[in-house]
């Protein structure tokens, strides 16, 4: 066969795509891709609403003075909370981001939109099935579903269907990359944001494979075909899915930080090489984190724990710390080009804080680093873990990463997706302005107060820390009750932010004004001087980023102090070996 034949064959196989041209970016937008992005984003928001409501009920029950739900309902709702927000909201949104980062950013048509709809259908059916199983009440096994505790078969089946759909969508993402390269829809290398999305997609394949390896036998066990699931083996493999899926989130929201910084202040990556290497570190090392959940289990050697829990000498943490410099650094550089050059922090003070996309992104960046990041490393230290394992410190940590970090970043991105993809003006702009602050401060409070309660020994997934029904009593410190009350208050704040987000999105999608390309309410980038006036990085002898250097310096000192303070706490515990 000649190369001409192959090309002809490809042209025949290729779909006749219908495009519109984006009035802001000049990019060609495949309408089929746009519809799929809309569908996945809408599904994401629906599951966020359900899961968020469950979360509020959990927080109000754990507030000792309120203690809203009876025990049975509490555990049921807690199971539903985990599945809906940690899996369904986040992964639907990530699929939307993958389609955006491939078809839209690369100017390409999307591969096989029909399979895209099949993937979407599988994910919706799977998510609905798991929700039905949970609400029926015989699958109150928590998000982690540790055996020998058993859920109804359709709980596992729902998760499996959802995962198959997600895997299919990831495949479409890869296929779209191939098409874009083949049809030369872009020049040179893929954009950094797409590179980040590729990172997320590669980790997703590993994650979903781990999920299949463990959930399929567990499903067969639930219908009686497999006799026994070893509880320790289950945890090792299940967390290959459970923790790795959080690494999909990290890669995705870091990619979105870069995207939002570009679209709001016209930020240019300080160095493509450095930022891409940081993403590469994620691909190579983030999956080892299954070990974080196995540090106080029997039968696992210290050598295995030390190597895996540290992502092989903290090389994935290194990746995050690099992004922690380059994201604010690129914003500072852009803002200085925009003319905000006074002192160390004029660039930050005069940043577009009234734009919810920027505000949400920057809050997400700071809180992910300071709250989620530092606590995660400390919690994942082999010996220190014994102080916090399964206490409320653990949900405290991951509300710092997944809520204050990922969810807030996704919300921020929504304020760009609405005009760019949905082609709607953001409804209730004044409400939208305060939304990231309400949600962000709420999420930070939830994370910090749960961590505080955890250090006082308050267990996670626990209905009643007064232990009223226990035959042998134990009294928690008064501070623990105070922390749980504050956690409840901040949960209300976050819920308020969540409700505003959903109201704004629903109103914009259903009744929002269509964007008028001639007179848009929003500009991209918001400050356009920088984009027009891009200095090629590397052509200067030095780029002065004093503000960013101070910020990362503060971070570094906080990190070191908190890390070693916890070793000090550990040294006071009963000696054991």
């Amino acid at each position: 066969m000649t190369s001409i034949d192959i090309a002809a064959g490809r042209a025949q196989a290729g779909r006749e795509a219908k495009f519109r041209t984006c009035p802001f970016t000049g990019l060609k937008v495949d309408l089929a891709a746009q519809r799929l992005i809309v569908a996945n984003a809408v599904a994401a928001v629906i599951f966020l609403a359900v899961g968020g409501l469950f979360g509020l009920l959990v927080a109000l029950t754990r507030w000792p003075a309120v203690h809203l739900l009876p025990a049975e309902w509490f555990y049921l709702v807690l199971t539903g909370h985990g599945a809906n927000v940690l899996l369904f909201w986040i992964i639907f949104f990530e699929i939307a981001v993958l389609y955006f980062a491939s078809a839209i950013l690369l100017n390409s048509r999307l591969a096989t939109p029909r399979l895209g709809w099949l993937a979407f259908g599988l994910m919706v059916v799977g998510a609905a099935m798991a929700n039905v199983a949970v609400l029926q009440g015989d699958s109150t096994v928590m998000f982690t579903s540790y055996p020998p505790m058993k859920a109804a078969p359709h709980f596992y089946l729902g998760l499996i269907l959802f995962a198959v759909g997600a895997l299919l969508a990831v495949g479409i993402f890869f296929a779209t990359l191939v098409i874009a390269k083949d049809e030369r829809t872009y020049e040179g290398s893929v954009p950094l944001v797409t590179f980040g999305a590729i990172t997320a997609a590669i980790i997703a394949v590993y994650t979903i494979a781990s999920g299949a390896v463990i959930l399929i036998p567990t499903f067969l066990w639930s219908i009686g075909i497999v006799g026994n699931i070893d509880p320790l083996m289950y945890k090792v493999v299940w967390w290959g899915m459970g923790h790795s899926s959080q690494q999909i989130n990290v890669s995705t929201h870091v990619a979105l930080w870069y995207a939002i910084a570009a679209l709001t202040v016209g930020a240019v990556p300080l160095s493509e090489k450095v930022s891409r290497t940081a993403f590469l570190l994620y691909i190579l090392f983030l999956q080892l984190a299954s070990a974080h959940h196995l540090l106080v289990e029997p039968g696992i050697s210290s050598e295995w724990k030390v190597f895996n829990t540290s992502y092989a000498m903290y090389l994935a943490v290194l990746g995050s710390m690099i992004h922690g410099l380059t994201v604010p650094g690129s914003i500072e550089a852009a803002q200085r080009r925009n003319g905000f050059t006074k002192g160390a922090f004029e660039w930050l003070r005069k940043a577009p804080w009234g734009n919810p996309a920027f505000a949400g992104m920057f809050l997400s960046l700071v809180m992910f680093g300071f709250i989620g990041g530092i606590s995660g490393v400390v919690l994942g230290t082999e010996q220190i873990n014994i102080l916090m394992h399964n206490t409320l410190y653990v949900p405290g940590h991951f509300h710092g990463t997944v809520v204050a970090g990922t969810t807030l970043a996704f919300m921020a991105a929504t304020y760009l997706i609405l005009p760019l993809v949905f082609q709607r003006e953001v409804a209730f702009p004044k409400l939208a302005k305060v939304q990231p602050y309400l949600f962000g401060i709420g999420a930070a409070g939830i994370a910090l107060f749960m961590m505080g309660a955890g250090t006082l020994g308050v267990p996670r997934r626990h209905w009643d820390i007064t232990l009223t029904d226990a035959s042998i009593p134990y009294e928690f410190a008064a501070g623990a009750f105070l922390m749980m009350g504050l956690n409840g208050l901040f949960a209300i704040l976050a819920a308020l932010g969540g409700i505003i987000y959903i109201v704004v999105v629903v109103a914009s999608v259903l009744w929002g004004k269509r964007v008028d390309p001639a007179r848009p309410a929003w500009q991209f980038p918001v400050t356009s001087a920088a984009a027009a006036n891009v200095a090629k990085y590397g052509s200067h002898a030095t780029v002065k980023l004093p503000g960013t250097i101070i910020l990362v310096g503060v971070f570094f000192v906080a990190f070191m102090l908190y890390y070693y303070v916890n070793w000090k706490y550990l040294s006071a515990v009963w000696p054991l070996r």
Partner: protein
Amino acid sequence: MAVTPPVQRIWWKEPIERVELVWTALAFLWGLAMFSTMIVWHVVGKQNLANEAYRISPQTFIARADAFAEKYKVREEANTGVPVVRPPAGADIYLLGRLWEWWPVLELEKGRTYRLHLSSIDWQHGFSLLPVNINIQVHPGYEHVITITPDQLGQFGIVCNEYCGIGHHQMTGKIYVVEPKPQ
């Protein structure tokens, strides 16, 4: 911009600026420091969780815990009928997790070392010793042997911090630490 292809096509050859180089080196060294701290603690630290574990059937573990409790029982915990067990220093001691209690109640001597055998006979449980804050996952079918030295006097609570069904919040236990008998 991050949403468009790199301005310089040969981006992998561009020089790395000093601020990024220094920060990356610093972060890498910090990672090495944290990694080494874990290893150093295995040598100098007194809190390193045991790797000693065995597979065990629930029946065998129940039998051993029963025999242990019968041999060293000194009284019953008030209003519960749960035996309070005071083993001699250095003994193998057993703590059994089940729906929904930690059994039996232990009475240990301050400053003495014991070999604590932990296992569950049904679902997974979370051993959480309070307010000391020692938290260990307990699996059915696995016996974890931890050599432990209580160094504080008083009454310590044990709660369950792994969800184990509707009675999870009723699952508690207790350890008394008392002055050692002169040896």
